[in-house]
């Protein structure tokens, strides 16, 4: 009874996980911000004057044997099968597992699917596209009916673009950071059922293309996957090893792209904001309902970042001689590394600790005292989350994310802006990046 009663309480912060990092010491935050500014101007002065990130042609083809394995239908089927197996395991715990903190589903959703997918994608590319169990179920349904999964009953309208993914990411952030009881089984049952129903229906209507930009997790994994050194050369679709970030050059402007990257950034920023005592003081002193204040705070964070982004890229575009919309789309990919920095800074310790908790719980998904994976009795190690390790990783992640964002933006600017205007056109972009970096550090420092 006590275990049942306390279970939801220990699952509040971040959806799960009660441990929080110490705030960043002021000196570290200032050092991080200062190095971001210095590094920006050094980069701007020293960087290449010709575009160098070329997703069309760059990269060295993988050794033939490796490429043959990775491209083999059997390998694809293995990954899809692994995704199905993981989904089945999750459903088992979701439907039959205990309704308390022993249930692994919150850890599967908020730690493994959401956070661990980021490093997996940054290393290996858009892995969720291969694992996505809904894509596989959709394919199997079509095959069973003798249909081509790519065909829907309607053409996917071009105006939809990334908007469903942006909405899905916002919805997921809301579920995790705002909803009343994100880790409770009933919340997760509803959320997962709704997610499956929406995407299977949409895929049946529009064909499997729907998942490319409609599924929040494919978009999340796909955009972070563009940073990966492993990718496909656009010119010939060959698997290549390439400099990280080259893939971001291949991201083309489309409706909803800006919204998607801004939500990626804003959801993490709001996570930092809402965890602060200042935020609690504000909401509690106004007797606001937690959900109402949270919904407002999340939306306001995303909208403020969107406004800042459109303003800065718009001014840059005007200085460089291109339109506001074109400019926002063109520079959207440069936000992806910045968002990656935010994710690493905010979720490193969460992944390090709760990732272990996930595997401990996965061993006994039904709460029957089983130990299917041999990890049930383990205690999580905190060796990787000492305050100094965490603070170092946080500052380095924010600053490196900033540097990579500046590089991507610079490369775009050199491509788009005529030579004499390229440097002056980048000043608003630099202001944007420095602001986002200082904001990221401030959220880590603030309490």
């Amino acid at each position: 009874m006590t275990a049942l009663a306390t279970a939801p309480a220990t699952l509040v912060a971040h959806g799960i996980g009660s441990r929080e990092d110490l705030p960043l010491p002021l000196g570290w935050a200032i050092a991080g911000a200062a190095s971001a500014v210095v590094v920006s101007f050094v980069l701007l002065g020293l960087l290449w004057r010709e575009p160098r990130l070329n997703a069309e042609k760059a990269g060295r083809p993988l050794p033939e044997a490796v490429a043959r394995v990775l491209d083999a239908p059997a390998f694809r089927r293995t990954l899809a099968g692994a995704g199905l197996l993981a989904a089945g395991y999750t459903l088992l715990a979701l439907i039959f597992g205990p309704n308390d903190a022993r249930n692994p589903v919150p850890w599967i959703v908020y730690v493994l699917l959401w956070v661990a997918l980021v490093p997996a994608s940054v290393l290996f590319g858009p892995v969720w596209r291969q694992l996505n169990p809904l894509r596989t179920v959709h394919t199997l349904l079509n095959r069973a009916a003798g249909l081509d999964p790519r065909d829907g009953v309607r053409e996917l309208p071009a105006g939809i673009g990334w908007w469903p993914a942006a909405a899905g990411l916002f919805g997921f952030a809301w579920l995790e950071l705002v909803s009343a009881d994100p880790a409770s089984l009933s919340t997760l049952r509803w959320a997962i059922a709704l997610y499956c129903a929406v995407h299977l229906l949409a895929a049946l209507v529009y064909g499997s293309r729907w998942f490319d930009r409609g599924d929040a997790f494919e978009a999340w994994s796909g955009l972070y996957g563009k940073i990966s050194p492993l990718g496909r050369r656009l010119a010939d679709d060959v698997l290549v090893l390439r400099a990280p970030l080259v893939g971001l050059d291949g991201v083309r402007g489309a409706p909803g792209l800006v919204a998607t990257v801004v939500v990626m950034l804003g959801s993490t920023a709001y996570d930092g904001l809402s965890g602060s005592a200042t935020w609690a003081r504000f909401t509690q002193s106004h007797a606001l309902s937690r959900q109402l204040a949270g919904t407002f705070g999340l939306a306001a964070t995303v909208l403020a970042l969107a406004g800042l982004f459109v303003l800065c890229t718009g001014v840059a575009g005007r200085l460089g001689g291109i339109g506001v919309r074109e400019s926002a789309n063109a520079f959207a990919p440069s936000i992806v590394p910045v968002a990656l920095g935010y994710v690493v800074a905010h979720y490193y310790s969460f992944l390090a600790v709760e990732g272990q908790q996930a595997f401990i719980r996965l061993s006994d998904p039904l709460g029957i005292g089983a130990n299917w994976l041999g990890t049930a009795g383990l205690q999580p190690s905190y060796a990787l989350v000492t305050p100094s390790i965490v603070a170092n990783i946080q500052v380095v992640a924010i600053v490196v994310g900033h540097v990579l964002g500046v590089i991507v933006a610079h490369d775009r600017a050199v491509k788009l802006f005529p030579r004499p205007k390229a440097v002056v056109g980048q000043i608003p972009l630099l202001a944007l990046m420095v602001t986002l970096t200082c904001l990221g550090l401030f959220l880590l420092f603030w309490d």
Partner: protein
Amino acid sequence: MPHPPRPGLAALVLAVPLVLAGCGGAASSAAQGESPSSASGSSDSASSASSGSAGSASASPSGCTVGRTITVKGSSVTPPPASVDVTSGCLVRLIVTVDRSSEVHVHVVNLDKPVTAGTPATIEFTPTQQGVYEVELHDPDLLLVKLAVR
């Protein structure tokens, strides 16, 4: 690709921790400096814990105590929630008075304490693991205080 951007980048990435290392000393002392003033409430009890009068489970080996007296009326918490610095191994003593019976939960140490309306409840524990501990009231869900344990 003919001109990979990586060498310059790597140098910059390497430079960052060096900058940080230079600031580390000043940073940590700045953080420590805040702790005495932010331990408000019943901070006059700082010397009383060493005699062992507190329960044996919560006695602090180092003899230091951080106290805070918190009153909850409706959804208003007095003093308003803030982050309070605690040295690892010190005894934390919270005296909580609520206007509606509920339960106080201390994260990380996973301590639950029922509190009765109108009766001050004393909650004591000795955190040793560094990190931020949220102390919150259930029903209504309110953050009471955050303890930054260093």
